[in-house]
């Protein structure tokens, strides 16, 4: 079964600096989707970025970018020019394609990384 591992329970970054959050996953599928979600104290889960495994190009959304290493099964999130509003729990998630090997349609989440931004 697919598992998602976030090895950093907590991270801290200075405002305006860059931080990288790590995520690794385990799967036997060749095609799948990876996501980073942000959950601020308001608890609303917000999609930050999405990556399709068959695309080699790393996804980018403004100050957020990923380093997707398919062979290493690694999917890290880089936040540039960190802002106070970036402080939140960040969850890495994996999803199989519809009709995929595991025949499931849910998202598998990592344990999360709590990011603190220091002014």
């Amino acid at each position: 079964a697919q598992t998602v591992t976030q090895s950093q329970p907590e991270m801290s970054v200075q405002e305006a600096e860059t931080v990288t959050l790590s995520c690794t996953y385990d799967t036997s599928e060749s095609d799948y989707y990876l996501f980073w979600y942000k959950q601020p104290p308001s608890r609303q889960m917000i999609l930050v970025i999405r990556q399709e495994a068959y695309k080699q190009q790393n996804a980018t959304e403004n100050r957020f970018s990923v380093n997707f290493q398919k062979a290493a099964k690694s999917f890290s999130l880089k936040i540039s020019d960190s802002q106070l509003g970036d402080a939140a729990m960040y969850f890495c998630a994996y999803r199989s394609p519809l009709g995929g090997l595991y025949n499931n349609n849910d998202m598998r989440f990592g344990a999360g990384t709590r990011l603190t931004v220091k002014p």
Partner: protein
Amino acid sequence: SAVISQKPSRDICQRGTSLTIQCQVDSQVTMMFWYRQQPGQSLTLIATANQGSEATYESGFVIDKFPISRPNLTFSTLTVSNMSPEDSSIYLCSVEGQTADTQYFGPGTRLTVL
């Protein structure tokens, strides 16, 4: 992305009672999902709800404890039955976006059971 609302946003309940959580979407969606997030933990899928069929439950979750309704393509409810303090969690509903691989989440319902 869809606009998703949940009611109630939070509640404090007594042991042994039941609470029904509502999830409303501003557009028609095929699949809706219910997740539980225990304090300080990640999200765990409870069940998948398709309109017009029985919900599909994940291992460790049963219909008697978490009955789900899905009467139409924009609405679903999750009931937490015969509650105990261990049910204290955030309950989130989610829906698939225009690309079926992506899910968007509601604001969650924070449940505290005394």
